[in-house]
């Protein structure tokens, strides 16, 4: 990533003072400050993941100027949403809304029905004060702060985040909408999302990452999901940051209970550089996980996505479909592993990654990996990289449709099966708008 146009600042903004300021800002209890300081020391002592590791060899994350970004900026002067306002629709369409600008809560709404059901949707810092034992039971159970340099960095400088707790059999009908706004120049966002679904609970969660302005910025979210028996969670992350942002995310789900079901959806349109590591662990017998991903890259965007479908228990199912469209000189790497552990018999595991190369000279690598330690299972993977099919174009043209429109239709058709599985209509509309905008944007790198 030596080509990222960001200047390395000599002075680090990721300091122990910043850690203490952040802890003090929310009046954290002593144990929470100590946890931050432990993470800070781990951050200092842990090297970047080595490029010899398959997950880390294809883009150079070590050279990015993380320390140039400021995690502990003051509260935004304006308490307004700015352009993020366009993301919010009338209250009818969600059961909970939480908006944070670099960790400062701007909106926090819960429908009465959800509140009555005992559902918790609150800023993580608030939850640490109000529900310390509940939060402590689960925090870090999927991702340990010291796991790698990035999780340590995120835990030390956590400046925002959400705790969602779905009690037994709680049914949240409308989406829970979380919105993180990066508002300040050179700002750093380290949100931590912790989602716990007790037995039989069900919810749809949309987590949005948005930037005001187009300057350099850093977002490094950590997302943990813990699912108990027969719970059903649909979790979608939508990243639409500006063209100079860096986005690195670590998301791990543990589907712990029997017959639980999790849908994870990763949607990326923004940022200059994106690195995501997403793991879904099927630990409960009979559990199921669908993994969906959409991205559209243009200009000089780089996306490097890692996924893991990890089958620990028998009769588990995972089904992954990731698609990317790329134009200009955008680049995408997909590295996806299906792992079936010893004893995880009767596993069904499927993985499909498709990359559509549009105008310019984009590039995509797709690397599927199978690690199978069990037998008696069904497992398949498919990967493709290529331009729009000439025979498809000819077919549409033979029906009178001009070439540019035929191309557009085929790009839409490429995404249509995935768009249909976006769990909320307003998000689906927004995704289509983004796809159309990306299709129309002329190549910025050619403009000179």
């Amino acid at each position, binding site marked *: 990533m030596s080509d990222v146009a960001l200047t390395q600042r000599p002075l680090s903004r990721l300091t122990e003072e910043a850690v203490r300021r952040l802890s003090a800002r929310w009046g954290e209890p002593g144990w929470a400050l100590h946890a931050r300081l432990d993470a800070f020391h781990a951050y200092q002592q842990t090297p970047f993941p080595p490029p010899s590791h398959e997950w880390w060899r294809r883009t150079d994350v070590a050279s990015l100027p993380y320390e140039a970004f400021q995690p502990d900026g003051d509260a935004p002067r304006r308490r307004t949403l700015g352009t993020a306002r366009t993301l919010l629709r009338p209250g009818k369409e969600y059961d909970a809304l939480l908006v944070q600008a670099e960790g400062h809560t701007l909106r926090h709404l819960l429908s009465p029905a959800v509140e009555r059901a005992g559902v918790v949707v609150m800023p993580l810092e608030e939850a640490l004060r109000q529900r310390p034992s509940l939060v402590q039971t689960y925090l870090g159970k999927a991702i340990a702060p010291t796991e790698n340099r990035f999780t340590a960095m995120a835990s030390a400088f956590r400046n925002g985040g959400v705790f969602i707790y779905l009690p037994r059999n709680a049914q949240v009908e409308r989406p829970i909408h979380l919105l993180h706004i990066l508002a300040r120049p050179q700002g750093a966002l380290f949100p931590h999302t912790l989602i716990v679904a007790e037995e039989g609970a069900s919810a749809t969660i949309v987590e949005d990452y948005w930037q005001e302005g187009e300057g350099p910025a850093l977002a490094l979210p950590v997302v943990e999901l813990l699912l108990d028996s027969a719970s059903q969670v649909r979790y979608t992350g939508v990243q639409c940051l500006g063209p100079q942002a860096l986005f690195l995310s670590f998301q791990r789900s543990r589907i712990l209970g029997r017959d639980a079901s999790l849908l994870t959806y990763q949607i990326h349109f923004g940022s200059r550089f994106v690195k995501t590591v997403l793991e879904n662990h099927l630990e409960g017998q009979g559990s199921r996980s669908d993994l969906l991903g959409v991205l559209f890259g243009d200009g000089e965007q780089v996306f490097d996505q890692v996924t893991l479908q990890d089958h620990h228990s028998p009769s588990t199912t995972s089904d992954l479909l990731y698609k990317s469209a790329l134009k200009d000189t955008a680049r995408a790497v997909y590295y996806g592993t299906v792992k079936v552990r010893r004893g995880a018999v009767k596993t069904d595991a499927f993985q499909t990654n498709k990359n559509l190369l549009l105008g310019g000279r984009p590039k995509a690598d797709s690397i599927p990996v199978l690690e199978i330690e069990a037998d008696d299972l069904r497992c398949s993977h498919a990967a493709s990289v290529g331009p729009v*099919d000439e025979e498809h174009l000819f077919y549409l043209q033979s029906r009178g449709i001009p070439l540019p429109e035929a191309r557009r239709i085929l790009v839409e058709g490429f995404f249509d099966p995935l768009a249909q599985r976006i769990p909320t209509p307003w998000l689906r509309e927004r995704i289509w708008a983004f796809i159309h905008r990306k299709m129309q944007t002329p190549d910025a790198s050619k403009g000179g």
Partner: protein
Amino acid sequence: MTTLSPLLQIEDLHVAVEGKEILRGVSLALYPGEVHALMGPNGSGKSTLAYAIMGHPKYQVTQGRILLKGEDITSATADERARKGLFLAFQYPVAVPGVTLFNLLRTAGRALRGQDLPVVQFRRRIREQANLLKMDESFLQRYVNEGFSGGEKKRAEILQLTVLQPTVAVLDETDSGLDIDALRVVAEGINAFASPANAILLITHYQRILRYVRPRFVHILAEGRIVRSGGPELAEELEARGYEQVLQQVRSQA
């Protein structure tokens, strides 16, 4: 009267695919209201002619020309040809992932007419035609040809023909792979389309569809040339004697 000039005229057409000449001087004229059957053994160049008429970029016209309603379309793109009134029903239509049959019809309809038909009216028309072809309406919401059986694909092609109403239709082995019931339904669709205002080039290997769709002329294509033309009786002769004998006779006469 315009009916005196052909709707589709092919003059001394030579076509090469990847440098190899497949068609070596084909001439044909289709007048309004006419159905022409083009028959020939495998490898004779039937599909090449279909693709060349539609303007597939891989099929290079090295000599001769194609006229549609008197206008030279030899170098026009496929979509331009379609907008001038040409249609090709493919022998092996591709699956178009993510595009529903309804969407394809609506987009094509708009492209051909230059404007949208009112949705209600258009929907009704598609439904009527689908019923005529005994296609379940659920097909309209499925992705084009994806997971369709051979017979379903052919019906979908004919549905597009009857909805889009071209002036000249080239049907490339629309009968192949159909069982007798499906064949009859597809043939009825073609007959419903045929009118004094349009013309059909029916490309087929077998004579059996010609029991349902009666051609005025039958042409035999062999080794890239039309070696014999005649009336419907020529198809019966082919059926009775087989390609080999008929072609041998042609060669001996040459």
